[in-house]
């Protein structure tokens, strides 16, 4: 499925802020991105599909919006 990915915070040092890609589910999406970008592997990040934060992999539908967000520490 072709989905839109939005990167937040320091992830935009690694990924484009917004881009489209194809993946069956969120697990495949992360695997593909981690393979393309070493710096992404093993990072702690939050994944949301259509503004819902998920804990477990989710099957993606056409035009879903996947947000990838790192924790921010600043205060």
């Amino acid at each position: 499925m072709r989905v839109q990915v939005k990167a937040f915070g320091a992830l935009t040092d690694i990924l484009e802020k917004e881009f489209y890609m194809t993946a069956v589910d969120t697990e495949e999406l992360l695997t593909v991105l981690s393979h393309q970008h070493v710096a992404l592997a093993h990072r702690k990040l939050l994944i949301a599909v259509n503004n819902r934060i998920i804990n477990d992999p989710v099957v993606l539908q056409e035009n879903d919006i996947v947000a990838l967000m790192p924790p921010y520490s600043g205060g």
Partner: protein
Amino acid sequence: MQHERYARQYVLQGFGEAGQQKLQAARLLVVGAGGLGCPVLQYLVAAGVGHIAIIDHDRIELSNLHRQVLYDTADIGLPKAEVAARKLQQLNPECDIQYWVEQFSPANAVERLQSYDIILDCTDNFAARYLLCDACRLLDKPLIFAAIYQYEGQVAVFNVADTHGVKTSYRHLFPLPPDPLEAPDCNTAGVLGVLPGMIGILQATEAIKLLTGIGVVLINKLVTVNLLDHSTFTFDIPPALPESSSYPQSLDALKDFDYFNSCASTTGQIQVITAADLVMQWHAADLQLVDVREMDELPRLPVPHLSIPLATLPQRLEQLNRRRIVFVCQTGKRSLAAAQYYLGQASGKQQIFHVDGGIMVLKNYFNE
């Protein structure tokens, strides 16, 4: 109510005298009196919150002043909590203000939180954030969370039940802390001065809404704000807490939990080397310089080095065989990522460095 100070507020429909009285009766604890803490404190004290406590062990620095607007140049070197309490008391003499110049720690967390109704997370590091998250969860205290990065902010309200009785915490978002290198603080990443002002005011707003019952509070939701493009997103937080045995499940366990090491497991192992230090020793036999930029990036390094673009690093690990490995890139971002990745792969017998500022700084030395 005959009180001119709050007159513009209690005439508000839906707020009223009842709302003002709820603020007056409230007891709030603000953890951290920095970028977020300043606006949070200023607005909540001004709004008429009856009792406010501040805990912060830091002292005011010159580089704080572009965003921590409660402080003056003359305050540099003084403890933030003490100066904040003094200025806030002038702002509103009716507010009962208490402060502690001490680090918020597993040893004092429970004692400090116990007598307050709502806690505001204005901290600037993951050790304090996870400690606060766990302590508030175990004590069942509402926690208003905010955090910032460069031009972006996050805000959420934790440990308050929604209409289904569900409560969430910071660990629902990020069950375990990141490696600190993944999430640089304001000191290393920089921050636009107005950002904590905006995000802190959102945080103070949620406190006022929660106390007075007006509007819709950010319960079980995370809001993100980006100042550069005005984009805001509201995410639903799932009710299930990902299972983990790696955080404390009781107040006794919390006191013994090592937040500082669990949140800083690898920082000490990647060393930063400045350009000036590197040029003194880049011909040393035990030192291997690794350029992780793409092959066509300029300027080229004028000394012997390995060229291993970051994406190909996993396939070429065996080439890194000297005692000291120094990663370098254009500005210092990719070299840090490379060092971080390599740290997870290396045997532990090597010293791992990355060049602060990268070739953009190093090139100033190329002709010498």
